[in-house]
């Protein structure tokens, strides 16, 4: 297996990313373990990300495979990779300014983050189950450490250990599945399995067993219903920038990998698995929305909301899984993930802005009076929340609209109905923060140190949501063409 020049070019984004991740650390080592100014670190990191994104755009979408079929660089890789890189980049800006992550060991944090992004890129482009596993583990391991590195002493550690134990537990299950797939099909390359997966699944019980295990492993990663228990605790425990990192980038790429696995069309083969996933989707949407109603902590509310959004995305995934031209359904999933990442990032960014010190916990009622003190930021939060609730003309509405159109066109009417009902329930807890911000007197204000980066990120996200919302047509077509 010789490594041709083409392969190198294809994985150049990853190489660039890895090299740039080393720069802050080596400078710190050269300076005799004295932390260089965080601004320098963040600038280096962002340059690295820009370079990676540029390379991804140039080389990503060619559709060729590298390392004889282990990595593929098609539209999905490009789009999902870009979403991951952009939202991770935004989250790193948050890390730069959030009290819990700023200060000492900031370059280590950046190093881990960049490597986690590297894992994501691998995960997104992998079509070989083991490569997927490698990408998954690289991403997760660096994530566990990022959570544990928070200056906040108590709950971040607990979150880290929880995420670690359950993450490893689930990846063990995932691996078990891979072994069975290898056993029954002889190969673990999705491209090879593509043709006969749906027939094989009918004949060999072992293959079905394997695929189910793999799907359940993924369900854990994207916090689908019975396996979602870790998400609220970890999202609340982790420092807000890292939570935003997890909720946007990690979830996007996990869904991308899940989509690749489902692209083998296993659901057509066994309608039991199809039914199980449908019930999981319904369960996730309901639990996410219903639990968010009774939450008082703002971060935890957004966590549950992100669970419910996983439920909506799973509906898209299932539609892609069973539809003939799955391009339409897949592009609606990609579009939704783009919208979801932007909105959730925005919400977490506002929370990170309000946190005065590393130990401060933001309750929903603490937002009282925020609109009077910060009208612009309050408006941005309102846009994020209304978009999450699916109120037109924000991006969130169109995300849901495309998703449910895809589901309806494939006949999954009852899933769409359930999704619509759940978003009606969801409206209540999306409106509560707006109620508190605008209609209650209070003195909530952002911390006094000028967090210029975060504010810029928030405003750009809000603008993107409104602009892309109105111009969602061309965006969707672009995605669909690239996935063709």
């Amino acid at each position, binding site marked *: 297996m010789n490594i041709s020049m083409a392969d190198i070019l294809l994985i150049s984004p990853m190489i660039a990313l890895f090299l740039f991740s080393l720069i802050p650390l080596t400078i710190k080592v050269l300076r005799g373990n004295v932390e260089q100014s965080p601004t320098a670190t963040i600038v280096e990191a962002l340059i690295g990300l820009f370079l990676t994104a540029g390379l991804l755009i140039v080389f990503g979408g060619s559709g060729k495979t590298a390392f004889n079929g282990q990595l593929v660089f098609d539209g999905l890789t490009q789009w999902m990779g870009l979403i991951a890189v952009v939202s991770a980049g935004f989250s790193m800006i948050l890390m730069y300014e959030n009290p819990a992550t700023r200060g000492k060991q900031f370059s280590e944090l950046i190093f881990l983050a960049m490597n986690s992004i590297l894992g994501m890129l691998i995960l997104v482009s992998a079509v070989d189950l083991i490569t997927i596993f490698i990408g998954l583990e690289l991403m997760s391991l660096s994530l566990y450490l990022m959570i544990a590195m928070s200056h906040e002493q108590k709950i971040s550690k607990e979150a880290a250990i929880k995420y670690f134990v359950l993450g490893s*537990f689930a990846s063990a299950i995932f691996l078990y599945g891979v072994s069975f797939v290898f056993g029954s099909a002889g190969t673990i390359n999705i491209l090879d399995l593509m043709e006969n997966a749906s027939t094989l699944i009918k004949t060999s019980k072992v293959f079905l067993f394997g695929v189910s295990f793999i799907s359940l492993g993924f369900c854990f990663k994207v916090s689908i219903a019975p396996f979602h228990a870790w998400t609220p605790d970890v999202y609340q425990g982790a420092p807000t920038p890292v939570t935003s990192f997890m909720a946007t980038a990690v979830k996007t790429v996990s869904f991308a990998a899940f989509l690749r696995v489902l692209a083998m069309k296993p659901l057509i083969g066994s309608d039991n698995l199809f039914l199980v996933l449908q019930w999981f989707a319904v369960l996730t949407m309901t639990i996410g929305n219903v639990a968010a109603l009774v939450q008082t902590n703002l971060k935890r509310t957004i966590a549950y909301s992100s669970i419910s959004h996983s439920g909506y995305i799973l509906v898209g995934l299932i539609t892609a899984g069973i539809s003939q031209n799955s391009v339409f359904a897949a592009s609606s999933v990609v579009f939704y993930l783009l919208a979801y990442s932007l909105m959730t990032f925005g919400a977490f960014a506002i929370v990170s802005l309000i946190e005065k010190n590393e130990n401060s916990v933001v309750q929903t009622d603490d937002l009282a009076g925020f609109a009077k003190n910060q009208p612009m930021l309050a408006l941005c939060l309102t846009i994020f929340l209304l978009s999450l609730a699916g109120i037109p003309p924000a991006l969130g509405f169109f995300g849901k609209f495309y998703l449910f159109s895809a589901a309806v066109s494939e006949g999954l009417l009852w899933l769409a109905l359930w999704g619509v009902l759940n978003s009606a329930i969801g409206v209540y807890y999306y409106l509560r923060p707006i109620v508190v911000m605008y209609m209650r007197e209070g003195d909530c204000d952002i911390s006094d140190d000028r967090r210029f980066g975060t504010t810029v990120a928030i405003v750009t996200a809000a603008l993107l949501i409104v602009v892309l919302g109105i111009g969602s047509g061309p965006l969707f077509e672009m995605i669909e063409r690239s996935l063709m």
Partner: protein
Amino acid sequence: MNQQALIAILLLSPVVGFFLNGLRFRSKNYILAGTIATLAVVISFVCSVLLFLDLVGMPPEARRITANFFEWIAVDKFKVNAGFVVDQISSIMILIITGVGALIHLFSIGYMHHDKGVTKYFAYLNLFIFNMLILVLGDSLLTMFVGWEGVGLCSYLLIGFWFNDSAKAAAGMKAFITNRVGDAAFIIGMFILFMTFGTLNIHELNALAPTALEASWLGAVTLGTLMLFIGATGKSAQIPLYVWLPDAMAGPTPVSALIHAATMVTAGVYMIVRLNPLFISAPNTMMVVAIIGAATAVLAATIGLTQHDIKKVLAYSTVSQLGYMFLAVGVGAFGAGMFHLMTHAFFKALMFLGSGSVIHAMHEEQDIRKMGGLRKYLPITHATFFLGWLAIIGIPPFAGFFSKDEILWKAYSSSAGHILLWAAGVIGAALTAFYMTRLMALTFWGKSRVDKNVHPHESPISMTIPLIILGILSVIGGWVGIPHVISQYLGEVPNFWEHWLAPVIRILPLAPAEHGADHEALEWTLMSVSVGVAAISAISAYIMYTKKEGSADRVAKAFGPVYQLVNKKYLVDEAYFKGLINPLIRGSKNLWYYVDVNIIDKATYKVTDIVRGGGSFVKSLQTGNMQQYAMYIGVGVVVALSFVLMR
């Protein structure tokens, strides 16, 4: 001056009066306000006289002046425009309205001069005249209905004129809502007629009215006319919906004179006369009208016996006289109905204004038990009241005699008539004579029971002139329609009334021959019976209330409970409140409490509680213990796999 302009001026002068007074409603200058208002109505009167003369000049068949100003509602086949018609019937009505109206305006100047809202009062009066003219002149049922509800609105404003007294305000509201019940039926009547005949224009409706009599009760014409009649009972205070008229006395007396004696209450009769071809082709409705008319006449007369407030007595007398008009119309004697309407307008307006000047003299005292012997103090009022009294009890040659007798004769002789109807009419006449004489005796004759510090004085000239004019009209008013049986002895005086209305009134198909010897004799006998009965009861009442002191009370005690019942107006008002209004309010309170609050809101709260309960259940699942989560994963895996591998 062409006729359309005349009609325009006729209608617009009260409107101008309304605006002139309305815009400066705060000023207390009663003379200016009074003159503006009276002048406006006089102009209308002059126009109506000119129009009347034009009509007389026209050949009998073509006596119709129409003016069509603008198109009001035009949707698909439903075309109604603001059109007005002056023909035989409506010309008389506008003469009455503007004539009597002008006199009452003049009277009001004197009566209302001390009231601080006098300009507002005159503005409302002018608005009333304008609406009444629309009602009368309207060429389609809908235009008539505009006037119909407009006069209802004005009567609401005028009854509740002294609004800081909540009883008076309640009376105004009661009047409007009771009228509204009638109007609802009127609307349904209009729909029925529109659906069957495709038009609401009165002239076309009359032309389209089927000549064949409609036997069934559920026929379109019968139902339509019945609904219109229910509307008329609302407006003209007949049996079911008359309760508002006695309370309407809360308004100033000239208002009672104008609205609740001369003009508004007669609207129902006028409507039936206008649509007489339709009513004729629905004999069942005619029967209902006649029966209700007779019943109201008798019932109202009995209540009139026991009332102590001078205006209440006159109010019940009005209800009773209206009953007569409906009786006349019910038996097909449309001409007689209109005739009685005109004469009643004269003498009832006279008596109301007379009672006004009495009340004015007695400084707002209305209880006749505290009056008596006012003959000395109010000579002119007494004289004119005396003429009115003679007219109402039907003593020849006064107006009341000719019109009431005509009704009684037709109640008997007409094919739709019946002996019982005639009998009811005669009983009514007797009762009318009794309570009117009682009224005269208690207020003017007999010993004076006026308490010391009240010393009545005659009303000023501006109030007595209208009384005098109306007194004269009450006398000569009847000579317009002298029945043939009498006129043949007086040198063939033409019965102007019959000729004038003939072309517009359709005669009942099988009416018996008018002439013929035996009929004349019968007519004479019936006439003498009714006059005799009236005279006897008048004399007995005179004796009871002037000569023998205690006799009235003794009779009252003799009848005991019956007297109490009648005195309390048969407890009809209380029945309405207990049976209809209070349960309605209580019901809607429960309705609101149970349906809105308990069922609908409770249901939504239940849904939110279920959802919230689910939320707290899921929250309880998140125990925070790592192994609990691992267990969920384990269970999830086992369940999923067993389901997947099951088949």
